């Protein structure tokens, strides 16, 4: 994922302008598996989008165009409540993770040698979500902590912190050290240097990390499944129980809207990285 960033620079590095078009022309046949792959990736999504405009209650039979499922979706209290819960959890987890992850990344880069603390901080991103989920469930029940949105926020903040740390660390690597030294030499204390010099330089990494944390939290199912109360399900849990116990075509409309949101987000993120890429 990281290599999708700053395409202009990569483009320039390996431009090889003379042979590129030739390679493309030669490689037409090579595109066939690519198109088949895209067909595989997009066919199911396409079916869901088409069926979201279906007039019928039947999930499998097309009867005619209709927008009826969209208003019904917004009138569905269960789904709307799930959406609200998801946003609360994602916002809370992102807030915690952004602060902790940024501090951790800075501390790791500046003050640790060897990879132990780094590996520990990134571990939640690699550990199976299942293990974290049941571990936290066990831990919360040992503490007799009632499950709810707060427990899901804490649980999501764990893996979100790992992702923020990883991304800010990557940004730290390209940081201009001499600016910090200059700030120190000019008499600014460590806190002031961090706030005035380091943070602004890290900002794009922090924003990218926070966005990733937010998106991952919104989509996360397994950990939320183990750490929320059944009375306060997040949206993925609502969808899960709908799929399990009977789907209404509203789900298609919901899927289409979520798809639209993620397309806009991905394209916006792409633009953002391109912008920061040119600035750099």
């Amino acid at each position: 994922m990281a290599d999708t960033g700053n395409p202009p620079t990569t483009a320039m590095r390996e431009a090889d302008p003379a042979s590129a078009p030739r390679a493309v022309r030669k490689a037409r046949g090579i595109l066939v598996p690519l198109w088949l792959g895209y067909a595989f990736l997009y066919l199911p999504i396409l079916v869901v989008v088409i069926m979201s405009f279906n007039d019928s209650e039947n999930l499998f039979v097309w009867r005619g165009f209709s927008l009826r499922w969209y208003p019904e979706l917004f009138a569905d209290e269960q789904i709307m409540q799930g959406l609200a819960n998801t946003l609360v959890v994602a916002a809370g987890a992102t807030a915690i993770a952004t602060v902790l992850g940024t501090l951790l990344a800075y501390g790791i880069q500046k003050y640790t040698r060897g990879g132990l603390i780094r590996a520990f901080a990134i571990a939640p991103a690699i550990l199976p979500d299942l293990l974290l989920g049941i571990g936290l469930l066990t831990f919360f029940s040992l503490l007799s902590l009632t499950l709810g949105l707060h427990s899901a926020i804490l649980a999501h903040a764990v893996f979100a912190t790992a992702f923020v740390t990883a991304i800010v660390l990557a940004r730290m690597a390209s940081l201009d050290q001499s600016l910090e030294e200059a700030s120190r030499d000019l008499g600014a204390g460590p806190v002031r240097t961090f706030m005035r010099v380091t943070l602004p330089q890290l900002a794009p990494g922090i924003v990218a990390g926070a966005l990733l944390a937010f998106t991952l939290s919104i989509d996360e199912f397994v950990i939320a499944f183990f750490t929320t109360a059944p009375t306060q399900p997040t949206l993925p849990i609502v969808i899960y129980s709908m799929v399990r116990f009977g789907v209404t075509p509203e789900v298609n409309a919901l899927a289409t809207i979520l798809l639209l949101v993620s397309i806009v987000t991905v394209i916006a993120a792409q633009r953002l990285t391109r912008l920061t890429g040119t600035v750099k």
Partner: protein
Amino acid sequence: MTSTLDRKAPAVRAPRARRGFAPVPFLAPGLVFLIAFMAIPVGLLAFYSFFKRGRFGGVVFEFTLDNWVKLFEPLYLGVIVQSVGVALVVTLLALLIGYPMAYAIAGLSPKWRTVALVAIVLPFWTNFLIRTYAWILLLNNAGWVNQWLQSLGIVDEPIAMLYTPQAIVVGLLYMYLPLMVLPLYASLQQLDPSLREAATNLGATPWRTFRTVTLPLSLPGALTGCIFVFVPAMSNFVIPELIGGGKTIMVGNLVRDQFFEARDWPFGATLALVLTIMLVLVILVQSAVSRRLTEGSRRG
């Protein structure tokens, strides 16, 4: 003499003193948080795995090795083997499908390459459960695939596709294919084109160039991709449940059931730990092998 020493001494000592103090406010909050909500919970699972189950979940503090012995009962061993098998098949298929895709993307012009990559990532940002549900629409007896097959006259009766082991493989493959394509692309894109040109100029056929130059150099990317697919495929329990209809049980389903139905937390914890240990071992082997590979290619 003394005055210069005096002036120099604090300048040398000051940074060290700052270094001694400064890490705490940066490292402590995050580390305390992760110790509390990752290390302790995981440690707790390891601890629980040596005790007896409580009647309604939880644990009774009587030491036992039963949970670890139970793993070797044919029933549970079978589930573990089956999970490894399914995850391996999914990984292999993802490699076979993902490699040509990544190869084709690496050959595109820079502009189209970006578009192609976004198109790979995009489904991945679509809700995981909705992508799973989409396959129910497709594979159901009354679903789209059966409708097409029947209208084309290929089959008379709908084929049972949903709730089969094959459906689980397709579902997992669909879910994790992008994770194979991305690292493969990253390693293929870094390949120095002049290497391939050199091989061609020296008279190698395209196939030979691919086999002797491109393929070995893209192995680290392939390995990374395999890990990215194998690890989540192995612990997924939603797809086996929703698309597999709960008929093919994987380790993840077993863990979930121990917590929500059987209420045997210690055994559930043991299963999850075994799963994690296996995955960590796989990752360690992968990183050792890929370090070997990069060193080898650098020497060669």
